[in-house]
C-alpha cells in the first residue's frame, strides 16, 4: 500500500486535472501487479489451497485412492483417538518435542553467546557451526547417524569407556528416539544465527552501567541479556517447536523406513505417512493431518498468550 502512495511517477498537477485517467492508470498498474503475481497465485491455489481443502474434505470420508471417497462424518476422528498406534505416535512426538526443542535452543544460545564475542576467525566459526543446518535434513546424514549409533560403532564404544554398556541406540526401542534428538540438536545453526542477531541488538551501555554497579557476568546475562533477547527467544521457541512437531525425514531414515523398532520412532508424521501411502487410508491420514494442524495452532496460541509474561519488548519499556 505504501508503495502506491509514494509512487512519484505522476506529476501532481495532472492528478487533479484528470482523476479518471489516474484511476485508469492505477487500475492498469494493479492489473499488471496481479499479472506478475499470477504464477504465485496459481501455484498457491493449485498446490497449497486446493490440496488443503481437498484433504479437509477427505478427513470426513473413507478414501482408499481407488474408489470414490465415502462420507463417514467424524468416524476417522473417533477411530483415530481410540487407535493405540495413534496414541503411541502422539506420545513419541511429544517426547521428542519436549526433549529436543529446549536442548537445541540451549545449545544454540550457548554457542551464540560464545560467537558474539569479537575474536579472530569469527566468521569461520560461525560458518562451521551453521554448516550442519544446511545438510542436516539430507537423507545421507540419516544414514551417517544410523552408522554412528549402531552397535559397536563410535557412540557405543565411547559409552563403554565410561562403563555404560547399553549397546547401540539404533536397535533399542528405549534409546533410538534420543538418536533423533541428537540429530536435531546437532542442527542448532539456524536458531543460533537468530540469537546472534538478537545479541548484537543489546545496547552496550546497559552492560557498562551494570558493570559499574558491580554486576557479575551471570547477573548481567540474567538481568540484561535474557530480557533483551526475549523476543528473539520467543521467535525461536515458536519456530523450533513447530518444526519439532513436524519431524519426519530423520525418523524415517534412521529407523530404516519402519519408524521402529517396536514403534519407538513412530513420530506423528511417520504414522500419517504409513496410513496414507502404505495402507492407502487417505481419509484417516487427512484427519490426522488436520488434527496436527489444530494441535500446532493451539500450541502456538498458548505460546503467544504466555509471551505477555516473559517476553520483553523495548517499546513497552520506553
Amino acid at each position, binding site marked *: 500500500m505504501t508503495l502506491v502512495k509514494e509512487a512519484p*511517477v505522476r506529476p501532481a498537477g495532472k492528478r487533479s486535472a484528470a482523476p479518471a485517467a489516474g484511476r485508469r492508470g492505477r487500475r492498469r498498474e494493479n492489473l*499488471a501487479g496481479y*499479472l*506478475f503475481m*499470477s*504464477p504465485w497465485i496459481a501455484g498457491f491455489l493449485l498446490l497449497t489451497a486446493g490440496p488443503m481443502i481437498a484433504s479437509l474434505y477427505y478427513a470426513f470420508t473413507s478414501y*482408499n*485412492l*481407488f*474408489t470414490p471417497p465415502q462420507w463417514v462424518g467424524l468416524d476417522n476422528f473417533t477411530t483415530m483417538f481410540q487407535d*493405540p498406534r495413534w496414541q503411541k505416535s502422539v506420545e513419541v512426538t511429544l517426547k521428542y518435542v519436549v526433549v529436543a526443542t529446549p536442548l537445541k535452543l540451549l545449545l544454540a544460545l550457548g554457542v551464540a553467546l560464545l560467537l558474539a564475542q569479537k575474536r579472530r576467525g569469527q566468521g569461520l566459526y560461525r560458518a562451521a557451526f551453521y554448516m550442519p543446518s544446511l545438510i542436516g535434513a539430507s537423507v545421507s546424514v540419516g544414514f551417517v547417524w544410523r552408522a554412528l549409533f*549402531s*552397535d559397536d560403532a563410535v557412540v557405543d564404544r565411547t559409552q563403554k569407556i565410561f562403563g555404560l554398556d547399553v*549397546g*547401540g541406540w*539404533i*536397535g*533399542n*526401542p528405549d534409546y533410538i528416539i534420543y538418536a533423533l534428538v541428537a540429530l536435531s540438536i546437532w542442527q542448532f545453526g539456524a536458531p543460533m544465527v537468530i540469537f546472534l542477531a538478537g545479541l548484537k541488538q543489546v545496547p552496550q551501555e546497559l552492560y557498562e552501567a551494570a558493570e559499574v554497579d558491580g554486576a557479575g557476568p551471570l547477573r548481567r546475562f540474567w538481568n540484561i541479556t535474557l530480557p533483551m533477547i526475549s523476543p528473539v527467544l520467543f521467535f525461536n521457541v515458536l519456530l523450533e517447536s513447530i518444526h519439532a512437531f513436524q519431524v519426519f525425514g530423520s525418523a524415517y531414515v534412521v529407523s*530404516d*523406513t*519402519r519408524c*521402529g*523398532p*517396536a*514403534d519407538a520412532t513412530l513420530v506423528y508424521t511417520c504414522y500419517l505417512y504409513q496410513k496414507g*501411502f*502404505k*495402507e*492407502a*487410508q487417505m481419509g484417516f491420514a487427512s484427519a490426522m493431518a488436520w488434527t496436527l494442524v489444530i494441535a500446532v495452532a493451539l500450541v502456538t496460541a498458548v505460546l503467544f498468550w504466555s509471551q505477555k509474561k516473559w517476553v520483553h519488548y523495548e517499546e513497552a519499556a520506553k
Partner: protein
Amino acid sequence: MGTSRNVERRTILKVAGASAAVAGLGATTACGGDGGSGDGTVTLRYAWWGGEPRTIAIKKTIALFEKKYPKIKIKPEFTDYEAFWEKFQTQASGGNPPDVFQNAVGFLRKYDKRGVLLDLKAQADAGNLDLDNFRNGVLANGQVDGKQIAIPVGANTMALVIDVKAFEKAGVEAKFGWTWDEYFDALQTIQDKLKIAGDTGYFNIMYLYDLYLRQNGKAFFTDTDLGFTEDDLTQWWEDGYKRVRSGLVADPKKIEQVKPKSGLSAGLAASEFTWDNFSIRYEGEGESDYGLAPIPTTDGKDTGQYLGSLMLSAFSGTKHPKEVAQFISFMVHDPEVGKIMGYDRGILATTEQYDAFKPTDANNKGVAAYEEEVAKAGVLGKITPHPSGADVVEAAFLRIGGEVAQGKTKPADAAKKLFSEAKAAFAG
C-alpha cells in the same frame, strides 16, 4: 518520455509472461503422451523392484526384446521393494501405472479388486501370449477367480538358509523330515558349542508361520480372512520370545542394527528362514558359506511348502494390450532371457527357460538341487490364497512380532493387536 518507457517495459514483460505461460502449457501437453508415435512405434513402461544385479540383467533382456521387436520400445522403472509399492499405489490410483510390472501373490487380489490388473486370458486366446510349458502347475499362482492376472517368471519355495561352516563346527545336520523339536535342539547345540544364536528370528516371518499352520491343517489366510486363532498366534509368539530370552534366537536389537543386511550374513546367527532364491544374496553379503536346508516338520513328512512366484502383470487400462502380451510372453519363454536372468527371481518358470539355463556357480546349483529335492519329496502343496489387504497384514505381522521380540508387547496382547489390524486391512 518517462511514462512511455514505463509502458514499453510493461508491454515487454507482459509478452514475456504470456510466452512463459504458453511454454508451461506446452510442457503439460508434452507430458500427456500415450506412448504411441506416428511411425507405429509403441512405448511400454515396465517396472520392477530389486537390487542392482537384477536391474542389470533385466536391462539386458529389454535390449534383446527391442532387437527382436523393433516397433516396441520399453521404458524401465525400478526401485526397491518398499518404494515400489508405495509408488505403484499412487500411480495406479491416478490411472497411470506402468503397462507391465513385477507382481507378487500378496498384491493380486488387492489390485484385482481395484480393477488395475488386465485379464491376460483374452490375449492368450488371441495368440499374443503363450500359456504353455509352465513347470509344476505354477501358472495357477497368477489366477484369481478364473482370471489370469499375472504370469510367473520364476518359482521359489521357503527354505532354511544355514551357515554351513557353523553347522559343521557344531556337528549338527539338517536333514529332510526333521521335526521342530530336532531343529530347536540343533539351535541349542550351536549355542552351547559356538556361543552364537542359532536363528535370526523365525517367528516374525509370515510365510514361515504359514508353513507351520499348513503342517497343522490350517493356513495363514483364507479367501477373505485369517486362517488361525488368536490363541494359535499367542502360543507361536510366546515360544519365540522364550527362545529370544534364552539366546537360541538372536538379539532383535542387534538384528535391527545390521539392517538392511541380514542377521545371518552379519554372523549374528547360524540360520535363517527365507525364500530359497534369496540365498544367492547372502554369499555376497557374508563371509561364511551358505547352504539350503529343509524346513522342519511337525510329523516328519509334511513341510507345508508350495511354490511361490514373482510374476508379471499388466495394467488393465494399457493402450497396447497386444504389445504388452507379446512382451510378457517373450520375457517368460525366450531361452536367451532365461540364460540372462538365471534364478534371480526364483527357478525359471517355463521349460524353455529352465532347460536353457544351466547353473554353473555353487549358489545357483544349490537352489536348483534344493528345489529338485523338494519336488521329489512330493511335499509341494498348492499356494494358499491371499485376500486383499494381505500386504498390510504381512507388514503388521513383522512389526508386531518385532515388538514381542523386543519385550515391548506381551504375546497375547500382540495377537489381539494383529487380529484387529488385519480386520481393518481386509475391510480397506
